């Protein structure tokens, strides 16, 4: 979508980002910068505001205060669709597909969006073979090629998660946002997903945000960990340091130790 940028300048920044729901402050004054070629894991106990923070970045929610900037440009007022077109790609925690459309069509729609062809009214969709081929390529990458003509609603949970990722890949974003990509997956399916995230990471120019509960996943992938607790950013740094810090031991591992 855009030319490679230098690792110096942050791709995405949040400045004092805050959202209140009535009296409850779900995300409180979170300022953070995300640089390319870095995978940042966002951890914290349930209800810490991780998914809300994601929603503020990708545009599903509007903040009560603070700003979001992408390449230095203020995108706080932009709707989700515009942010996607500028290079923010998001996979959702709860599977969120087009249930009555085929697996291939789910991905093809994302490819078509990336190609900017949505408002083409007078050509036949099946004539755009290149879009279909690209969609097939992404299905191949998540190993769903054999299910291409199945309805998305008929897929098993693990396959739906893979389709979710294929849609994200098809958007070809600069900034990848994964919200618990392995949640609810069986043990033998998890490596496919992790390998995929690893592949994206090794491309070198992508910025990746990952919300994840499994500490082994986090420590094997992350270059940096930030910790949210009760909506506030309480720790930020190298994985080893952050995991060892008392505040994480207490706030995260202590409370969510059963996970």
């Amino acid at each position, binding site marked *: 979508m855009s030319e490679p940028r230098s690792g110096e300048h942050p791709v995405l920044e949040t400045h004092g980002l805050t959202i209140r729901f009535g009296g409850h402050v779900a995300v409180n004054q979170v300022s953070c910068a995300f640089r390319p070629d870095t995978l940042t894991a966002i951890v914290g106990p349930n209800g810490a505001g991780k998914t809300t923070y994601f929603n503020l970045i*990708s545009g*599903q929610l509007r903040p009560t205060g603070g700003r979001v900037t992408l390449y230095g440009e203020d995108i706080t007022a932009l*709707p*989700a*669709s*515009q942010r*996607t*077109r500028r290079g923010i790609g*998001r996979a*959702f925690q709860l599977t*969120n*597909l*087009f*249930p*009555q*459309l085929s697996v291939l*069509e789910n991905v*093809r*729609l*994302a490819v*078509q*969006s*990336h190609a900017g*062809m*949505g*408002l*083409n*009214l*007078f*050509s*036949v*969709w*099946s*004539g*755009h073979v290149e879009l279909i081929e690209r969609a097939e390529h992404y299905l191949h990458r998540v190993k769903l090629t054999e299910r291409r003509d199945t309805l998305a609603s008929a897929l098993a949970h693990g396959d739906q998660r893979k389709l979710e990722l294929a*849609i994200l890949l098809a*958007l070809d974003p600069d900034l990848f946002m994964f919200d618990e990509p392995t949640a609810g997956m069986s043990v033998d399916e998890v490596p496919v997903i992790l390998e995929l995230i690893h592949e994206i990471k090794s491309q070198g120019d992508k910025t990746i945000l990952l919300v994840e509960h499994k500490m082994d996943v986090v420590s094997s992938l992350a270059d940096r960990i930030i910790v949210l607790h009760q909506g506030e950013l309480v720790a930020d740094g190298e994985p080893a340091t952050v995991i060892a810090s008392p505040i994480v031991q207490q706030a995260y591992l202590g409370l969510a130790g059963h996970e």
Partner: protein
Amino acid sequence: MTRRLLSGDYPRSRMLATLLLLILAGLAFAPFAFPGTRSLDVAAKVCVFILLVASYDLLLGYTGIVSFAHTMFFGIGAYGIAIAATRLGPTWGSLVLGSLVALACSALLSLLIGMLSLRVKTIFFAMITLAVASFFAILASQLSGFTGGEDGLTYKLPQLLLPGTKLLEAPLFGVEINGRIVSYYIVFFTAAALFLALLRVVNSPFGRVLQAIRENDFRAEAIGYRSVIYRSVANCVAALAASAAGILYALWLRYAGPDTTLSFDIMIDILLMVVIGGMGTMYGAVVGATLFVIAQTYLQDLMKLASDAAAGIPLLPDLVHPDRWLLWLGILFILSVYRFPAGIVGKLRGRQ
């Protein structure tokens, strides 16, 4: 060739393909196969309603928009021609001008309604369109100096389209080729071309986005489609097609009034035709409109025959008396919706 015409969207059922070909042949040769004023009226009405119902299917079946303002756009088209022909005289120029003004009004109004209110939830949008359509119907009946009020407008058309104009000296296949035949074929070919255009729109990259928005508008936004814009464009395309149907209907009837275009009864008929034919299929509009219009017209005749035949048997003649035709039409609809929830097209395709 067929692939291009149908935009790669085939009937996908042998039965359905046969049915569609029968309807197409019936309409294409209607003046010769079913001579007579009344049957030609029915054929023209079928053509107009196929277009009208197909354009509504674009909204309801493909995009998941419930609008009650579709008859308003139908009416704008009809009144556009009617007012132009009344005020400016029965020339081709005034018909073209009336059509263009009507289409421009529909485009503007539909975009305005769309942009202002397609952000809200389905049910609220339905209420807004209901309010706007009622307002428009009242406006049309109150501005009687301009629209003819409740009586509507009757007007003359250019010479070529009048029944008295003979084009051929001798009758062709026993049918006199007059201005009505010309009018019929204008209606038939325009409706057919616009139906194919709508079929193209629903099979375009844009049409696929509409289905995605119907399925999950939250996710459609998240992958980069601004749903309010797509819904507004769909609303505008549907409004333009409905207005074109109105123009054709006014051209055929040489009359435009609240009862033929704006009434809420027609809105309900359109809804029934979409549902009976099969939502989100386009071909459902063809089957639904044809069956509905024919049933509406001929059920009474059929019942009169049955009533006469059953004379002497107690109760039965009363039950099938022609005055009870609405009751039987209603029962037919309930049965068909109950038996074919996916519509006739859905049922036929499901058998494969």
